[in-house]
C-alpha cells in the first residue's frame, strides 16, 4: 500500500494537471478581458512556479516535504476556481492571486517530484496516460470547463487525504518495528 501510493500519487497529480490544462486555459481565457491580460496571467504563473521550484530545492532536509499540503492547496485553488462567479467585480484580482498560488504549488511539486526515484518512469507513463485520457475526453461534451476543474480540485484534495493517511500509517509502523 505504502509503496503503491508513493509510486502512483505523483503520477495521478502529474497526469491530472496536464489533462486539466486545456480546460483551465479555456476558463482563464474567458476571465481575461484581453489577450494581453491572459498572457500576463500566464507569466505570473510561470514566475511563481520558478519561485516554488527554488523553494523546494532549497529545503535543507530533503526527506521532509510538505507535499500533502501542496496537494491540498492545489485542490482548494481548483475548487475555488469552480466557485468563482465570472461576473464578480474583483475577478481579475482573484485570478492573479490564484495564478500566483497555483504557480508556486506547481513549481514546488515539480521540484519535489524530480527528487523521487520514480520520476523518470512517471515521465514516460504520464505522456502515455495523458494521450489516452485526452482521446477519451474528446468524446465528452464540455458544458463548462469549471465542472472538470472542480472535479480535479476534489481529486487533489483526496490525494492530500490519502497522503496524510499514508504518513500516519508510516509513523505507526516504524515504532513497532
Amino acid at each position, binding site marked *: 500500500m505504502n509503496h503503491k501510493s508513493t509510486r502512483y500519487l505523483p503520477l495521478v497529480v502529474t497526469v491530472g494537471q496536464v489533462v486539466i490544462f486545456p480546460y483551465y486555459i479555456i476558463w482563464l481565457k474567458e476571465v481575461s*478581458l*484581453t489577450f*494581453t*491580460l491572459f498572457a*500576463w*496571467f500566464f*507569466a*505570473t504563473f510561470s*514566475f*511563481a512556479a*520558478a*519561485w516554488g521550484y*527554488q*523553494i523546494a530545492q*532549497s529545503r535543507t532536509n530533503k526527506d521532509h516535504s510538505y507535499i500533502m499540503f501542496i496537494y491540498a492547496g492545489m485542490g482548494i485553488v481548483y475548487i475555488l476556481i469552480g466557485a468563482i462567479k465570472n*461576473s464578480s*467585480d*474583483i475577478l*481579475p*484580482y482573484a485570478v*492573479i492571486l490564484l495564478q*500566483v498560488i497555483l*504557480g508556486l504549488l506547481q513549481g514546488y511539486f515539480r521540484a519535489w517530484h524530480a527528487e523521487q526515484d520514480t520520476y523518470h518512469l512517471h515521465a514516460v507513463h504520464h505522456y502515455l496516460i495523458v494521450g489516452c485520457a485526452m482521446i477519451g475526453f474528446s468524446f465528452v461534451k464540455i458544458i463548462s470547463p469549471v465542472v472538470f476543474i472542480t472535479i480535479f480540485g476534489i481529486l487533489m484534495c483526496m490525494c492530500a487525504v490519502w497522503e496524510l493517511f499514508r504518513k500516519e500509517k508510516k509513523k505507526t509502523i516504524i515504532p513497532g518495528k
Partner: protein
Amino acid sequence: MQTIALLVKKPWFLGSLVVIFVSVILWNIPIEKRKYGLSQSGLVTDYTGLLPERIERVVKAENRSDLQRIVKRANVNGQQIAIAGLQHSQGGHTYYKNGVVLDMRTFNRILEIDEQQKTVRVEAGATWEDVQEAIQPVGLALKVTQSQSIFTIGGSLSVNAHGRDIRFGSMAETVKAMTIITPEGDIKTVTREDPDEWMKYIFGGYGLFGVIVDVTVEVTENHLYTIQTEKLKIGSYASYFDQLLNDQHMAMHYARVSVAPNSFLDEMYVINYKQTEKRDYTTALKKEQSVRLTKLALDIGRHGGALENLFWGTQKRYIASIDGKEITRNNAMRSESTFMEYTKPGRVEVLQEFFIPVHRFEAYMNELKNIIPANDKNDDFKIHNITIRYAAADRFTTLNYAKEDMFGLVVLMQHGLKEEQITEATSVIQNWTHLTLDHGGTYYLPYYRYQTKEQFRRSYPQWEKFAEEKLRRDPNNVFQNMFYDYYVK
C-alpha cells in the same frame, strides 16, 4: 551573467520578482468597456443597451454633398434617418426602427481657429477632446461643455448639454453660427439672429430638425484656476451658492451629495474653480489616471450599505486632498470616465438628471428622502452617486430644461434587467420625477424613457410647439428616432 544565474537560485529573488510583476499587472489591468452602438450584430443600441432595435443600415457620408444627397434621397424614397455620433444618449435618440442611421463620426475635422475672435469652427462628429487638443496650444479653452470631453459636438448640442461652468450660460449660447442640412436637404448657414430660428429647434432638438454639419463655437482663455473644496450640509447649499455666484472670481463649480447610509442626502462637498488670472499655454491635457484604483473604489461603493459609507469616506478624503491645487480650465473640463464602466451581466447602470429651481433645493432634498432609501444594500435599485451642476435659465431653446436658474442633480443608478426589476426602477424614477415636477423642476431628456408621457408633457409644456414645428419643417418625417416616436409623435 553569473550574477543572474546566482540570483535565480535564491528563492527571495524569485519571490521579489513575482511580487513586482504582480504589482505591475494590478496597476494595469484593463477595464472592460460596455459593448454598445452600431456594431452590435443585427441590432443597434445606445449606451445602456436597453432599447435594441433593428435598423435598415448605417451610412457614412464622405462629404457635405454626400450628406445632402442622402437626405434628399430619403425625402423621395420615404426613408427615415436618425443621426448618431458616439451614442452616449440613452433613450434611442440615435436610431429608429427600420430606419437609416447616419454615422457622423467621419465629420471630425477642426476647420478653423480664430485666436483674435476666440472662435473655433469644427465639424459636428469631432469630440470636445479633439477641440481641446487643437486649442490648448494657443491658450484657449471651451466656454461650456460637459464634465467629460468624450462626446461629439453635434451630440452635445442636440441635447443642449451643460457642465461645470457657471458664467457662460447654456452650451447653446456659445454657438455663433453653424452649417446644417435641413430636413428637405438644403445646406444652410444659420446664426442666432436667423429669422427662421433654426437654432431654437436644433439645440435640444435631439436630431429631429436636421443634420449639424459644422459649428462655430466661442471659446475663452485657458486660465489657471485654484481648486477650492468645502464640506457642507444640504440645508446651507442654496445660500452658499448664491454667494458663490456673486463672487466673480469663481469660474466653475459642482458638488457631490452623499448617498451613503450614514450621511444620506445630508452631507455634501462643493468643488469650486477660482480664477488666478494666469493664462496657461503649456500644461498638457490630462490623460486618464489611476483608472483601476478609482474603479475599484466605485465598485466597492456599488455594493451599498457599509461599503457605500466607506466609498463616501474615500471620496471626502480625495476631495479634501485636492483643495488648493491648481488646474487649467481645459483640464477641469475633461474628467475621467473609464472608471465608470459597468459591465455586470444582467444589470445596467444608467443616468438620470433632475433640475430643481435653486430656491426649492432644500425642501426638495428633504422630501426626496421619502422616495429613495438611505440604505439600498439589499434593494435591486441602487443609487451610487449624485452630483450637482448649476444650469442657468435658458429662454432660447424650445425644449428647455432650465426655465429659471436650476440645480441639475445628475444621478448614477443601477438596476437589474428582469421585467420586474425594470418595473420597480421605473416606479421609483417616476415618483422621483413627480416630486421634481411638484417643486417646479424638470428632468433631462437624453436618458432612458422611464418617465410617463404625461410627465414629459408637464416638464416640457412647449412640446406642442416643438411637434408643430417638426411637422412644418420636416413634412416628410425624414428625421426620426425612438425618443420622438415614444414621446412627441
